[in-house]
């Protein structure tokens, strides 16, 4: 039973247990430290750990790996029995490797039986390292190859390996953290399971209080969150619809400008709007200063609180609702509207009885996405919330504040997750079994009906001032970086830019003296690492979902999409809970930042991939298959070239999203690996607006350049090809479905 993939993966496993450090290193595997330090401490590979450091429980790992390749040939002639042996040993190896890691807690064995077998130990063991990771990967792949040999996945090893590895990755980085957050919420301070502890934390006045209704001071943060999200989603959906109708159904002249406006929130760090609002409406904002000067109105702090956060969120998320809705509005078949007209419906009746109901899925989707964006939003509430707390900020203060109460953070996170999942569920229910897309393939080409006059006027009246205000706010946010102190001293200066991005020539060449460089380069580097991983994983998963048939495919699809419904704050907390202790100890490293971004943005890659793959006729794959190509070859030679625009869109999107994300990474950054957005938010919280604004502006400009550059590159490519999705549109749609 020799073939190349099998041998190769066996070799990977051998390298993992024989050469590379089994445990996680204090420094990186890419620094050469472990090579020169010899077999001391965690630098040693598995066999040395087992032999010299008294970790006898590691021996079975090696034994099982060897058994994978040595046993099956002896399992007798039948290929099926050989495959069975391989499956059993590989699975056992994987389970055992993980199991031994989890069986050892910080104070020794957490499983009593193990102590009896391997003798008692008093300390924990370090987190798993490169060697362990390679061994696990090897076991997983050998297991997949075994499955393929048994005829699963039509005997295609590549498909089997892909399904298994994507499943494991999703299990590890999406399901496991969610399970951990669930467990933590139900743990009391001693670490024991207790429903009482959960109830105690979850049902307090601070969360569910209704004081504000009875004239009291405050309501609970859960009600705050819900009220904010509902108001925000309603407003965003209405505004988004108004914009979409203007762009598709009216003779409005600046449609392109509106579309450009819609891209802004994707490339903007989430709190920039909040900043702009402060500069405009804050105590020393322009409007207040003008009012004071002209009419003697005493400035108030009205912008801080529910109304301010709502305003900022509606500004920030309306464009996303717009992007969702425009596709739907464009998709309403003009023939439907013409049919209504020939049935005596005037324009208004046509609009209300046919056009609007056909847009219902889009409206529900826009509402859902704005809702989730709102409950997950961290930046605007922290900048503008004042005394108005919401779940996401509350979660944050539970973890990093003086309270340091992870159980409480987990509980709050769970409530947040509950809201998000409930919203998803309700959306499904609201749409029901009805179909909203036209049925027959062969159609008549009609003309989109212009809006009824009343509707058009309403759209203009609502949307245009709003668009103007958005522009003003952005302009304000950009201008704020070039003055001394907003509100007091409007002398033009580059001081803030120098402070953040200063560069000097020193004795040893270029010196990055600016305070922002560290976080800036970290962000760019890690985002650039995360983007291709996100795109690859997303496209691979999309390919498996759309093109392969296997048991549990819909569960697989659900798993890859799950993180879409999880607010970033919850992801952040759950990652801390899940990956803070051995055997999986990656908090504080760059890995966790990359992983977090990859798995948060992957659903969008999956969606984009699925959308474009469904436009490529499956007969192409089949043709390739009948010509002798297997899974990997077909994917590489047929689909990937056709999918190039989708891939580029996914790349751009994941890069940009990673660059501007805040709610999840704020939990995961460390002194060494700081993120641009967390750096900025810290400046804001300290009242250092100048640098924060300057930094945000740099990010926005950088994003614009990146998007323009890639759009230009892909645009050139597309000229000679037909039928691929327009890249600009792709990015737009991706943004639309992001939460």
């Amino acid at each position, binding site marked *: 039973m020799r073939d190349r993939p099998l041998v190769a993966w066996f070799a990977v496993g051998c390298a993992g247990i024989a050469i590379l450090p089994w445990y996680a290193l204090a420094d990186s595997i890419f620094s050469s430290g472990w090579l020169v330090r010899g077999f001391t401490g965690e630098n040693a590979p598995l066999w040395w750990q087992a032999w010299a450091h008294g970790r006898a429980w590691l021996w079975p790992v090696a034994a099982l790996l060897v058994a994978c390749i040595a046993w099956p040939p002896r399992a007798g002639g039948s290929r099926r029995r050989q495959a069975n042996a391989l499956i059993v040993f590989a699975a056992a190896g994987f389970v055992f490797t993980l199991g031994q890691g989890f069986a050892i807690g910080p104070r020794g064995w957490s499983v009593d039986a193990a102590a009896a077998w391997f003798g008692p130990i008093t300390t924990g063991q370090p987190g798993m390292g490169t060697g362990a990771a390679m061994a696990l990967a090897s076991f997983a792949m050998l297991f997949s190859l075994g499955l393929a040999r048994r005829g699963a996945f039509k005997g295609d090893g590549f498909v089997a390996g892909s399904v298994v590895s994507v499943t494991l990755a999703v299990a590890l980085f999406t399901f496991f953290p969610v399970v951990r957050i669930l467990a933590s919420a139900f743990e009391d301070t001693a670490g024991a399971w207790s429903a009482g502890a959960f109830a105690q934390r979850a049902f307090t006045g601070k969360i569910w209080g209704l004081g504000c209704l009875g004239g009291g001071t405050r309501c609970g943060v859960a009600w705050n969150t819900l009220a904010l999200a509902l108001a925000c989603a309603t407003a965003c959906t209405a505004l988004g619809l108004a914009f979409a109708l203007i762009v598709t159904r009216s003779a409005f002249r600046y449609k392109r400008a509106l579309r450009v406006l819609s891209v802004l929130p994707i490339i903007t760090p989430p709190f920039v709007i909040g900043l702009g609002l402060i500069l405009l409406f804050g105590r020393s904002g322009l409007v207040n200063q003008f009012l004071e000067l002209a009419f003697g109105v005493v400035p108030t702090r009205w912008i801080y609180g529910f109304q301010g956060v709502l305003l900022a969120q509606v500004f920030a998320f309306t464009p996303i609702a717009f992007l969702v809705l425009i596709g739907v509005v464009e998709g309403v078949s003009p*023939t439907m509207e*013409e049919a*209504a*007209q*020939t049935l005596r419906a005037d324009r208004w009746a*046509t609009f209300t009885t046919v056009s609007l109901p*056909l847009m*219902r899925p889009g409206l529900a989707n826009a509402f859902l996405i704005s809702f989730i964006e709102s409950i997950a939003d961290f930046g605007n509430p922290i900048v503008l919330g004042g005394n108005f707390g919401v779940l996401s900020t509350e979660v944050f203060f539970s973890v990093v504040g003086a309270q340091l109460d992870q159980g409480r953070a987990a509980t709050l996170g769970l409530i947040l997750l509950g809201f998000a999942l409930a919203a998803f569920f309700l959306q499904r229910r609201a749409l029901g079994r009805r179909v909203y897309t036209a049925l*027959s393939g*062969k159609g008549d080409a009609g003309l989109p009906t212009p809006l009824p006059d009343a509707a058009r006027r309403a759209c203009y009246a609502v949307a245009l001032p709003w668009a103007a205000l958005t522009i003003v706010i952005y302009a304000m946010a950009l201008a704020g970086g070039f003055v001394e102190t907003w509100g007091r001293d409007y002398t033009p200066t580059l001081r803030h830019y120098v402070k953040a991005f200063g560069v000097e020539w020193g004795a040893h060449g270029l010196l990055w003296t600016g305070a922002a460089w560290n976080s800036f380069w970290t962000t760019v580097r890690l985002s650039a690492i995360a983007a291709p991983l996100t795109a690859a994983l997303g496209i691979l998963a999309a390919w498996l979902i759309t093109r392969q048939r296997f048991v549990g495919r819909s569960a697989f699809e659900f798993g890859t999409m799950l993180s879409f419904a999880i607010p970033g704050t919850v992801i952040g907390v759950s990652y801390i809970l899940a990956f803070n202790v051995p055997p999986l100890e990656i908090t504080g490293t760059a890995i966790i930042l990359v992983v977090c971004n990859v798995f948060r943005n992957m659903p969008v890659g999956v969606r984009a991939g699925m959308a474009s793959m469904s436009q490529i006729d499956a007969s192409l794959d089949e043709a390739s298959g009948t010509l002798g190509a297997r899974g990997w070859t077909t994917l590489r030679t047929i689909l990937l070239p056709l999918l190039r625009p989708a891939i580029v869109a996914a790349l751009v999107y994941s890069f940009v999203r990673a660059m501007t994300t805040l709610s999840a990474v704020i939990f995961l950054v460390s002194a060494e690996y700081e993120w641009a957005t967390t750096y900025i938010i810290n400046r804001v919280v300290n009242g250092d607006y100048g640098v924060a604004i300057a930094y945000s502006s740099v990010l926005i400009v950088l994003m614009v350049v990146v998007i323009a550059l890639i759009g230009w590159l892909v645009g050139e490519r597309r000229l000679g090809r037909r039928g691929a999705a327009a890249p600009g549109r792709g990015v737009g749609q991706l943004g639309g479905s992001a939460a």
Partner: protein
Amino acid sequence: MAAATIEFDGVVKRYGDVVAVRETAFRVEAGTLTTLLGPSGCGKTTILRLIAGLELPSAGRIRIGGEDVTERSAAERDVSMVFQSYALFPHMTVLENVRYGLTVGRRRTPDADARAREAMGTVGLTGYDERLPSELSGGQQQRVAVARALVLEPAVLLFDEPLSNLDARLRRQMREEIRELQQRLALTVVYVTHDQAEAMAVSDRIIVMNRAVVAQEGTPRELYERPRDAFVAGFMGDANRVRGTLARRDEEIGEVRIGGATLAVPHRGLPDGEVDLAIRPEAIAIGAKDGAPIAGQVKKAAYLGGIVEYTIATGVGDLFAVSLDVARPHAVGAAVGVRIAPQGVVVVPPDAPR
């Protein structure tokens, strides 16, 4: 509402530089089924949409029931339309679709449900009230579309290639049903198709269109037997086009010479000399070589069950013929004699200059 006439008076429709309908005038009598027939892109749909009020003409007047409706919107005209894609509202049940026109707008009808059910009964859809369009077969969807248009008892009912999304067997059945319905309710129907056989089967009158103008208008028989020009002759069924010489004999009949054959056919006012002729395939009889006016050789023979199709190479060119004589086919390469029946021959005026 009583069935109404439709009149087009110098109607033109332009889309920018594209002229979709050139100056057109015709009249559709009340209670008749008139077909617009022509190749794809000749402007049939545009004419239908002009009648419905979904497009307004660039010039000219449109009258329905004697009333000038040129500037009226679709909702204000007493016209209903069955769309090629049916355009059923996917978010409404069958019943909701059918009663839509009765419940919307200013003229709410109190017994809308009852009337909708009646219309559904007319098209044989009783009991499908609560189905969604997505749960119906193509033929059933088509019936819903018809019922939805019928329920308003429109003065004019329009069909745009209503059968093009159906399979061949259903197509024949549905066209008979539409014709039967039209005659029973004495509706004025304008029906668009590009299928000559379909047009001939259902129509009282046919308007043949070519490149944005009306090529000829008349009963199916007139168009088949007296096509105005070569385009109409070719579009109304298969025709062999050959050259011959015409010599007038009297007011009506002329003597036409095709190869060795001499036939008496109406000269249609054409001058003596060279003329174009259209010969229907079924008018060509293939028999023994001896004594036949035209000699030929079988070039192709295709057995189609009830008939055999031949292509015969002759001195006047290749002739396409169909024969009912399936029992004794002629082999390819055989030398045969060709006779032409005068009933299947028309002299064709040259195409009108454009």
